[in-house]
């Protein structure tokens, strides 16, 4: 478990401060370890099919926090990971902790873009925002009371070589539920916990409303960009016009300068807004994580219901055989009636087998019930934790959006006050 020393020592450059939520976590990794995704680098390599590919690698830097408090600067460990390894980690966490709302990764491809943003994965702005998103992901996991204790996660942060093999050795892929099975359960389950049904509806609504919001926001950003940039044309024309004017010349020229300032100001404004959009996107993807937990519950509940049903029918069969009555239609029963009855010995044997199966079934049902109840309990605890986190984060995001709007308005007031003064001197 010795951390592999990184190629070079880099100073950690935090993209985003530790999330507020971590202040409430007592014993989580995030408290003991400073984690940053500090750099992104373009790489070329050969993929599984021996074809050349270009990808981006991200530098994860970690440093123990305790030694900082002692006044010493502890060494920084670092390693490089690419997006697909993050995905692998997350898939592992999803399967291993199905009762946890696992934090989402930043989007794989640029979505909800407006015209100025590139949809290209290699675009530096996209890469930068992804770097921040990946750091956020790691911090979320590190501040989760359950997930932060996972050994695979710790190795992801500290062990460059052999991590992939380690994950695959856990065999988590085999434990994964098939999508088909999950879908089947969703349709057929009879008595899911009502809270999970409500939660599922909520996550659907959340996903739908946030996507809609992001789409319209992108369009609004596009239009706002247009308004600002067209004003830039005034600058050029005023300058040219001022050349033929005597009295108006100065006023025109200086007003034109302010129009240029105005037009240029939109770039920073919209860049900041992208970070706000990313905050919303995180919760868009969180909706999927919520649904995953609901699906797991449905699956377990369905499993339980099937097991109970199976047990009931076996008991009935047993009873029929014992009493010789046939309450439920069974093909076997009919054929035996038609083609001759069984001997008492054969019947006894059958009953014995069934009784064994019934006992097994009852034990299984008991443990499934317990499992189910445990799952509901722990899942619901995490869901409550998630709800509080979500409310906190979203409220903060909305406030930061207001702060951005205020800043934009103040800039606008300044520019137009200056411009007005110049115009009035024309």
């Amino acid at each position, binding site marked *: 478990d010795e951390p592999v020393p990184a190629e070079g020592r880099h100073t950690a450059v935090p993209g985003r401060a530790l999330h507020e939520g971590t202040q409430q976590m007592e014993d989580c990794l995030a408290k003991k370890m400073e984690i940053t995704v500090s750099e992104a680098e373009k790489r070329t390599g050969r993929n599984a099919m021996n074809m050349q590919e270009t990808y981006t690698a991200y530098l994860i830097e970690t440093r123990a926090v305790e030694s900082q408090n002692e006044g010493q600067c502890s060494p920084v460990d670092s390693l490089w990971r690419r997006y697909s390894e993050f995905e692998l980690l997350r898939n592992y966490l999803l399967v291993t902790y199905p009762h946890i709302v696992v934090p989402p990764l930043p989007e794989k491809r640029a979505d909800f873009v407006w015209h100025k943003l590139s949809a290209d994965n290699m675009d530096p702005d996209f890469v930068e925002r992804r770097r921040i998103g990946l750091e956020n992901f790691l911090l979320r996991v590190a501040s989760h009371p359950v997930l932060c204790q996972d050994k695979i996660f710790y190795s992801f942060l500290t062990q460059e070589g052999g991590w992939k093999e380690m994950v695959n050795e856990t065999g988590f892929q085999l434990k994964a539920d098939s999508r088909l099975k999950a879908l089947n359960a969703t349709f057929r389950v009879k008595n899911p916990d009502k809270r999970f049904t409500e939660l599922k509806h909520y996550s659907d609504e959340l996903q739908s409303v946030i996507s809609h919001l992001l789409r319209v926001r992108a369009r609004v950003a596009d239009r706002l960009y247009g308004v600002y940039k067209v004003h830039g044309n005034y600058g050029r024309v005023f300058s040219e016009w001022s050349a033929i004017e005597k009295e108006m010349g100065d006023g025109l020229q200086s007003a034109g300068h302010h129009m240029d300032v105005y037009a240029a100001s939109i770039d920073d404004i919209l860049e900041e807004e992208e970070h706000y959009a990313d905050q919303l996107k995180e919760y868009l993807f969180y909706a999927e994580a919520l649904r995953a937990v609901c699906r797991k519950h449905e699956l377990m509940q369905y499993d339980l219901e099937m097991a109970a049903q199976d047990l009931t029918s076996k008991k009935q069969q047993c009873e029929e055989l014992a009493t010789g009555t046939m309450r439920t239609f069974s093909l076997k029963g009919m054929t035996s009636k038609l083609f001759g009855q069984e001997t008492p010995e054969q019947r006894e044997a059958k009953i014995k087998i069934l009784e064994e199966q019934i006992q097994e079934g009852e034990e299984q049902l008991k443990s499934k019930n317990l499992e189910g109840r445990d799952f509901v309990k722990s899942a619901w605890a995490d869901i409550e934790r998630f709800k509080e986190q979500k409310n906190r984060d*979203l409220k903060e995001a909305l406030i930061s959006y207001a702060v951005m709007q205020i800043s934009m308005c*103040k800039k606008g007031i300044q520019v*137009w006050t200056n411009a007005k003064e110049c115009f009035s001197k024309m």
Partner: protein
Amino acid sequence: MEAEGRVPGPPPPPLPPAGGGIGAELPAIPPGAARAPLLGAPAEVLELDDEEDDLEVFSKDTSLAEANSFSPSMTISPSSMINQYKFEDEPELRDLFITVDDPESHITAIETFITYRVITKTSRGEFDSCEYEVRRRYQDFLWLKSKLEEAHPTLIIPPLPEKFIMKGMVERFSDEFIETRRKALHKFLNRIADHPTLTFNEDFKIFLTAQAWELSSHKKQGPGLLSRMGQTVRAVASSVRGGVKNRPEMFTEMNDYMETFSQKINVLDKIAHRIYKEEREYFNEMKEYGPIHTLWSASEEDIADSLKGVASCIDKCCKATEKRMAGLSENLLPILHEYVLYSEILMGVLKRRDHIQSELDSKIDALANKKADKDLFSEEIGKLEDKVECANNALKADWDRWKQNMQCDMRSAFTNMADNNLHYYEECLATWESFLASQTVDCHGEEDSEDRP
């Protein structure tokens, strides 16, 4: 004599002769009896040669005018459009008030057309009554403009709204189109009323006062549209042939200026329209943006209030944007458009002046070639020389006046635009600040502490 920085006012000379004949403008001592005294202010202003008196009066006016025309805080609200039209004369000096309103549709077997009500209130002696109400259609305005151009080929006749508006997807008789046209027609007549020469034009008076049948019969007299067109055609043709040889420096400068000005004003017009379009698209998207937050709040509990707050802020900003757009379309856009038209008019005036001069030049050339008939030619040439001198002076004076007005109009239009934008941002700022205040109170002073870039 024009004092520096004074109110753009009527230059003391020349006063208009009664009735506009071609080339009849002579700088003359104004016959004091021919005009009724101006309302309120001393009528002698325009008649005295005494510099001091002029300056004194004008400095008094200047202070008033500055408070109105030069103050950056003057906001031109749509409801008080009348303020826009006092270019030079203060209300107390005006004696002719015109309004254009009440568009009415008329349907006949042949055509459908709109008439506008033109109300004139005046205290001038040459008007039989002090109030007139007539109805005029667009054709009548065209007629008036052509008569004025005919009578004063080198004066700057104000622009008329165009026959059709191609850009902007406005239906021919839509309410928007009619209203825009009405405002432009109102401005047209008021500009003529404010013009020191044109205001006394006889056709103008007839336009304002004659009943429909009177106007029709008056229109049928006189040279008519064709001859005026011919005049301009000849003028354009002569300029195409390579310009005028002996054009005074001043008019070459004017020409150069107008070429550049025309270019720039056209581009500005396009820019302003483009900005309007972008703002409209922005408004359309914003309309959808707010309600999504309200929709979201329905599935939330804790953050429902914050979401509704944001929705309400966005809706308010949306309305503020609508106001900003309205300000643009009521003020900057029409003014830029008028000056696009003005630049065409001015180019035409310069050409007509050139044409008048070329008549003189060609006669001089002819004289140089034919030594005979010297006396006859001299007399003709003398007349033409007078004509040229008149035309030049008239144009020069009107040019100065036009430039002053243009400066004033541009200043007020752009200042108004800046004001519009200021109000927009101030309103939005207030909205978001009050939202923020409500949120931070709830959070017990918790503010955005994240180091978001």
